[in-house]
């Protein structure tokens, strides 16, 4: 009994009663355990016993009640696909075992060196024919089937080469066995070569078996991502909590998440707080504390508290779905480096067939005696050694592993071309605000004069700023809370002096807070703070001076702070020979202050948002491959203009649209990782292509017999099949090695 869950589209539904009718009809089928129909998605999900229920039964159950089930248009559920693959693999395994077992006896009875130890029965040609026939036509049937089908389209592939090669060997051997007299009349020994046909088939099938297993590993990352999706959600509707399938969640649903639960869809917390592990989606290794108003992403794990959130993105709109889509697209794209391999492989098989014919003619006409035998064996060797698969697998397998590895660590690569260009980057332009820096100012200095304390300064300033949305005001209030300089004082006669600051009364005292000019205009002496003001301004900080009852009381300085990962990232990039440039709309002084902290020497300051693109182009004009790192929203044109646009810390559609690489884990070191990943992937591709081309370029001539005149070396077709079987496996395995490469700081 095999339980299967299948989801398929249903056409023609228009109301809730349609849902019930279809569900009822499906449930009536014997073997169906459950049937859930979703009107919004127009999909039915049926859980059934695949031994009892067929696709046709499901289709007719739906059509009997007046709707149309589009079962065959859907890709089978993952379980079913896996089951089919497993069946295919085990069938292949049986063929490999049988053909190598039978072929082994044939080889024992005929291979020089082994033949003396073999029992007489295996030396009998008729017995060999008997052993070789099932291998040729049962185990080898898939080569024939592939060949016949291809020939109908006037195309040829690997199957064609193997089928022709082994048929020549088998046919000749069968002929020798049945009509030895004719061969002997030609002054040749009547010796069959069944071992060549059987062992070649066995080994090539073995190669295919391992290749299929290894290939499955190349798409592991995307399967893992798909597997992250939550299956159910605990939805609160009409005051009641109920577990529903995640496909039934609608926008605006309130969802309760308990400790240890997987967050089902994207949303915003409306009550409660918790620590959330988003590492599986964003690659961010440290759990993030979230509270009311914060966004949560589907597939992340709730670590500690219980909270309720409102679903804001469902189905294909969720961040995880977007990531999966992006990775799938990247894996479907082609790298420019693949072009040559593509061109070669489209001519490859016909070219090998022509070379094989040429080899036969050459050896028959000019070869030593027995010329027919040499001609046949060398022709078979040419057909068997040629391996177009390695060429076809060289690039895509590496791209699949590379993009998958990136996605696992929060590096989303748009396509294979981006991955290819990224390894050539010579200059990286970082946008300052929000990319190199946190993007919001923080209080860096609090200075108190006279009898005032730092706590006083913060308390007065925070009391004035409490209602303001200005970033500097937010920073002061945050700092006041951190330093516990509370309680805030009630204010009176509040007045905002546009562009300069605020004045108000606190406990009857006249307070001024703002720029130096505000204080000077009100005849307050700031001479005492002259040195501090100069020092802090030079460091690119924003100042708010506080005066109480006509006397300067203190200064609060705030500045945008650099991200903790910025310095390390910049250092690593410079170390790898990449020029790092900082782009900012701020004045040179503020820009320089930040640049110095992270170790950037080339600064492009006072660049208006519209000019960022031009600045990128200017660096490109220096002959460099340029990457631009920005937030992806404000920098879209500059990201698009750069050879590689890297969007930081966002999974929004706009950013993904504009960027070639999206880093969703907000860690600047990922820029370094993305470039390292690109370099490693390209190295793997080059190794694979070199191997695939060199293999064919060197071994095909060897199989043709070019080494024979000098050293008497010929390639036994059995060895040719060993080489052929290992060549594609080695390419796939080399790509899989990418998984173990260290690309992180």
């Amino acid at each position, binding site marked *: 009994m095999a339980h299967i869950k299948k989801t398929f589209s249903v056409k023609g539904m228009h109301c809730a009663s349609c849902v019930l009718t279809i569900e009822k009809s499906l449930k009536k089928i014997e073997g169906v355990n459950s049937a859930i129909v979703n009107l919004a998605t127009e999909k039915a999900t049926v859980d059934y016993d695949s031994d009892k229920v067929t696709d046709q039964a499901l289709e007719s159950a739906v059509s009997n009640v007046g709707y149309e089930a589009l079962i065959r248009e859907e890709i089978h559920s993952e379980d079913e*696909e896996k089951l089919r693959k497993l069946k295919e693999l085990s069938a292949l395994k049986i063929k490999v075992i049988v053909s190598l077992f039978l072929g082994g006896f044939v080889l024992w009875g005929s291979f020089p060196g082994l033949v003396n130890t073999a029992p007489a029965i295996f030396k009998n040609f008729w017995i060999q024919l008997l052993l070789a026939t099932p291998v040729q036509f049962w185990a080898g049937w898939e080569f024939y089937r592939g060949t016949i*089908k291809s020939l109908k389209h006037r*195309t040829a592939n690997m199957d064609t080469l193997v089928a022709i090669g082994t048929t020549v060997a088998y046919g000749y051997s069968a002929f020798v066995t049945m009509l030895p007299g004719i061969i002997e009349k030609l002054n040749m020994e009547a010796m069959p070569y069944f071992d060549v046909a059987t062992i070649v088939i066995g080994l090539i099938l073995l190669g295919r078996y391992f290749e299929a297993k290894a290939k499955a590993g190349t798409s592991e990352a995307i399967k893992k991502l798909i597997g992250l999706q939550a299956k159910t959600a605990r939805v609160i509707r009409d005051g009641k909590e109920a577990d529903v399938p995640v496909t039934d969640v609608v926008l605006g649903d309130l969802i309760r998440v308990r400790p240890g639960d997987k967050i089902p869809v994207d949303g915003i917390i409306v009550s409660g707080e918790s620590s959330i592990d988003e590492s599986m989606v964003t690659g961010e290794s440290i759990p993030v504390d979230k509270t009311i108003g914060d966004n949560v992403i589907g597939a992340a794990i709730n670590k500690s508290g219980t909270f309720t959130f409102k679903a804001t993105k469902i189905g294909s709109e969720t961040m995880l779905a977007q990531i999966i889509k992006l990775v799938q697209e990247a894996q479907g794209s082609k790298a420019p480096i693949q072009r040559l391999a593509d061109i070669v492989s489209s001519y490859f098989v016909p070219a090998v067939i022509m070379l094989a014919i040429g080899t036969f003619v050459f050896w028959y*006409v000019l070869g030593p005696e027995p010329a027919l035998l040499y001609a046949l064996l060398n022709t078979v060797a040419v057909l068997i050694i040629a391996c177009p698969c390695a060429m076809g697998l060289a690039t895509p397998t590496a791209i699949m592993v590379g993009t998958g590895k990136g996605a696992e660590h929060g590096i989303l690569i748009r396509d294979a071309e981006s991955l290819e260009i990224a390894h050539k980057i010579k200059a990286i332009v970082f946008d300052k605000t929000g990319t190199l820096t946190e993007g919001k100012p923080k209080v860096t200095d609090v200075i108190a004069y006279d009898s005032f304390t730092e706590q006083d300064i913060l308390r007065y300033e925070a009391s004035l700023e409490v209602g303001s949305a200005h970033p500097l005001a937010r920073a002061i209030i945050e700092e006041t809370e951190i330093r516990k300089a509370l309680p805030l004082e009630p204010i009176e006669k509040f007045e905002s002096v546009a562009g300069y600051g605020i004045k108000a009364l606190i406990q009857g005292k006249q307070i001024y807070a703002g720029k130096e000019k505000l204080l000077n205009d009100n005849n307050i002496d700031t001479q005492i703070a002259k040195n501090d003001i100069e020092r802090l301004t030079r460091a690119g900080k924003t100042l708010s001076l506080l005066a109480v009852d006509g006397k300067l009381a203190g200064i609060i300085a705030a500045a945008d702070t650099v991200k903790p990962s910025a310095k390390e990232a910049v250092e690593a990039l410079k170390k790898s020979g990449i020029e790092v440039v900082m782009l900012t709309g701020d004045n040179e002084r503020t820009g320089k202050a930040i640049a110095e902290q992270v170790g950037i020497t080339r600064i492009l300051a006072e660049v208006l948002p519209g000019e960022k693109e031009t600045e990128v182009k200017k660096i490109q004009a220096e002959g460099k491959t340029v990457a631009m790192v920005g937030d992806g929203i404000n920098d879209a044109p500059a990201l698009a203009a750069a050879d590689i646009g890297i969007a930081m810390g966002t999974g929004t559609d706009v950013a993904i649209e504009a960027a070639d690489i999206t880093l969703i884990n907000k860690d600047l070191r990922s820029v370094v990782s993305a470039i390292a990943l690109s370099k490693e992937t390209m190295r793997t591709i080059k190794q694979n292509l070199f191997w695939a081309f060199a293999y064919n370029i060197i071994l095909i001539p060897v199989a043709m017999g070019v080494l024979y005149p000098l050293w008497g070396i010929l390639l036994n077709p059995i060895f040719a099949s060993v080489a052929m079987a290992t060549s594609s496996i080695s390419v796939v395995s080399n790509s899989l090695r990418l998984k173990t490469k260290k690309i992180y700081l």
Partner: protein
Amino acid sequence: MDKLIVIISGIIGILFTYWFFLMKRERTISANSEIEIIVEGGYSPESISIPKGRTTKVTFLRKDPSSCLEEVVLGDFKIRRQLPLNQKVTIELTPQQAGEFKYSCGMGMYHGKIRVTD
């Protein structure tokens, strides 16, 4: 004499192989809004034409168990799809650019063409 026959047969064989595989004439089938491509020893029809800017549903139906054909890659459209045996897999294409776009099986052995017309 036998050598002469082998030489002549060889030359004929090579020419035939060249003609058979590399000189086949291409027939392009134009698709209106949907088209089905049978995947069996290649793609049939091998060449299709679809209009630019409009969505065309291209349905692949793989009837060939050969593992070579289990994936189809439309690199220009960034699509790589598994084609389960005897299952229809529909891909929606809305090309924005006219031209000729090649697609292939996962290993690049079998080829098909999509012509996008204005």
